[in-house]
């Protein structure tokens, strides 16, 4: 991707909310703030807004760079920009950091205005439902009644789906990508191991590490290493690393011997240096708890009965964490409600990570569909 179709230099903004938010758990946030970015221009009729919902470790910085020498662009920069599949010449794109996050929105590591100290472990457990509610309030704040589209991958796809359950009249098109109607036991098990790695780190201090001057880096690192294994396919790991040795031959030690270990340690270290452990716990819990069918006799079709958007559901063949079969469950529920839906199963080697990659077929789908949306 050339920089010529980048959204360019971007700046995050903050919206403060003083109307209390009652969370699904019953806990109440008396006030909170959401950090967000926007790209493109909101048209006069306010019909061209697209909301991007982020996944486990994402945030509001979806596209563009903060400065000319910023090393990395936003996390979905390959999709969003002038002339890109999600064309910012046409659409007004909003990315936000979800509540409980660690990139600027109210969360465990942000300062509680009531105490002037980090919320720390006292920040409540948040759910997909809570996020959609807070996103709806952000739209109110921006003066947007209805979204041209809501787009999300993975945990973001769950939010995109949930929008259609609680605010069906506010969504015209919904993209549910590499997602699932709930997590399987195996999938939740990965989350539990990740959380246990964090919680049992001696530097975690029951989540109050900010006040102890520590960071549960080891736990977070292991959590991320585990996550990475599940986001890749066996094939892509084989292709990328195989059994390649780091130093040419084995050392009969427990240091890095294989290239794969080096990669995982690098990813783990990088993540542990920039992500908040308390946020990680909450994001994985939000994944676990999401199960919209639960309130409808376990019937996802019933849960989506009020939906009125047009849907695009996309899965990736080697994604075993959010497998095509799970996307097909969503498609079935949409079919049962005779809703317009396009479902693509993209052949990719990249496992769950594929939804963030610029696969030509995948991006052709996004481009062709988004071009058809009238604003």
């Amino acid at each position, binding site marked *: 991707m050339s920089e010529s179709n980048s959204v360019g230099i971007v700046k995050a903004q903050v919206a403060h909310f003083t109307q209390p938010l009652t969370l699904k758990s019953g806990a109440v946030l008396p006030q909170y703030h959401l950090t967000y970015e926007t790209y493109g221009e909101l048209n006069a009729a306010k019909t061209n807004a697209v909301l991007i919902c982020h996944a486990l470790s994402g945030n509001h910085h979806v596209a563009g760079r903060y400065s000319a020498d910023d090393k990395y662009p936003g996390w979905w920069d390959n999709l969003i920009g002038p002339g890109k599949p999600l064309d910012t010449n046409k659409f007004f794109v909003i990315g936000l950091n979800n509540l409980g996050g660690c990139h600027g929105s109210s969360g465990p590591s942000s300062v509680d205005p009531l105490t002037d100290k980090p919320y720390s472990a006292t920040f409540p457990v948040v759910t997909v439902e809570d996020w959609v509610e807070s996103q709806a309030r952000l739209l109110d704040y921006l003066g947007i009644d209805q979204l041209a589209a809501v787009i999300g991958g993975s945990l973001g796809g769950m939010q995109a789906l949930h929008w259609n359950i609680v605010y069906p009249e506010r969504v015209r098109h919904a993209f549910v990508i590499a997602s699932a109607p709930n997590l399987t036991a195996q999938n939740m098990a990965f989350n539990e191991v990740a959380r246990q790695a964090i919680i049992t780190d001696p530097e975690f201090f029951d989540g109050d590490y900010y006040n102890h001057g520590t960071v549960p880096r080891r736990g977070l690192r292991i959590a991320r290493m585990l996550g990475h294994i599940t986001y890749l396919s066996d094939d892509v790991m084989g292709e990328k690393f195989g059994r390649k040795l780091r130093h040419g031959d084995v050392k009969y030690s427990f240091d890095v011997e294989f290239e794969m270990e080096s990669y995982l340690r690098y990813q783990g270290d990088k993540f542990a240096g920039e992500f908040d452990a308390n946020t990680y716990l909450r994001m994985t819990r939000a994944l676990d708890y999401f199960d919209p069918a639960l309130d409808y006799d376990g019937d996802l079709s019933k849960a989506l009965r009020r939906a009125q958007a047009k849907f695009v559901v996309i899965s990736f063949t080697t994604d075993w964490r959010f497998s095509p079969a799970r996307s*097909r469950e969503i*498609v*079935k529920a949409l*079919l*049962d409600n*005779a809703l*317009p*839906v*396009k*479902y*693509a*199963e993209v*052949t990719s080697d990249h496992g769950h990570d594929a939804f963030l990659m610029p696969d030509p*077929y995948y991006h*052709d*789908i996004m481009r*062709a*569909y988004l071009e*058809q949306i009238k604003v």
Partner: protein
Amino acid sequence: MINAKITNIRPDFALITNWVNAKAKVLDLGCGDGTLLTHLHETLATTGYGIEKDDANWLAALKNGVDVIQMNLEEGLSGFEDQSFDTVILSQTLQAMHNTESIVQEMLRVGREVIVTFPNFGYWRNRMQITFGTMPVSKSLPYQWYDTPNVHLCTINDFDDFCVQHQIQVIERKVITGGQDVHLLPNLMGNLAMYRLRKYSA
């Protein structure tokens, strides 16, 4: 469904249109670029979905405004409820299916009516080529024996027997050659067979 104005429609598509009711809910298996569904929508205000496995066709169908589901028909129609469509269509794909028997059963489960079309292997030109010692290659069977996707070719008589054996009611049958109806000796003179089917009600 917006784009694609069809001027030159395949003759079997035009005939299929006669077998679909206005505003019917239609499922087109192997919908290609969505030409048939678009035509049905424009002429009969039908709704429904296409199923397509191939990426390029899938994308073309999307561009034609068709609600298209990417999946392999060989795996059945488990994502579709019983009797949830007025008409389920399989046009000129039956002969390339491996699970031929089960896809017909699945279509009859999902649709109140089923339309199946296929090239008639009993057509005299095919028989001639066999008689002279080669596998038939023609406009309707354009493949060489070594590269054909067609694994379950049949004749009209074969399919009639199949329907009897499987308790399938033939509501209508039409046999055409070069766009013209064939009434005399259809299994010999007909190039393309079209069937409108439903389950025998007990």
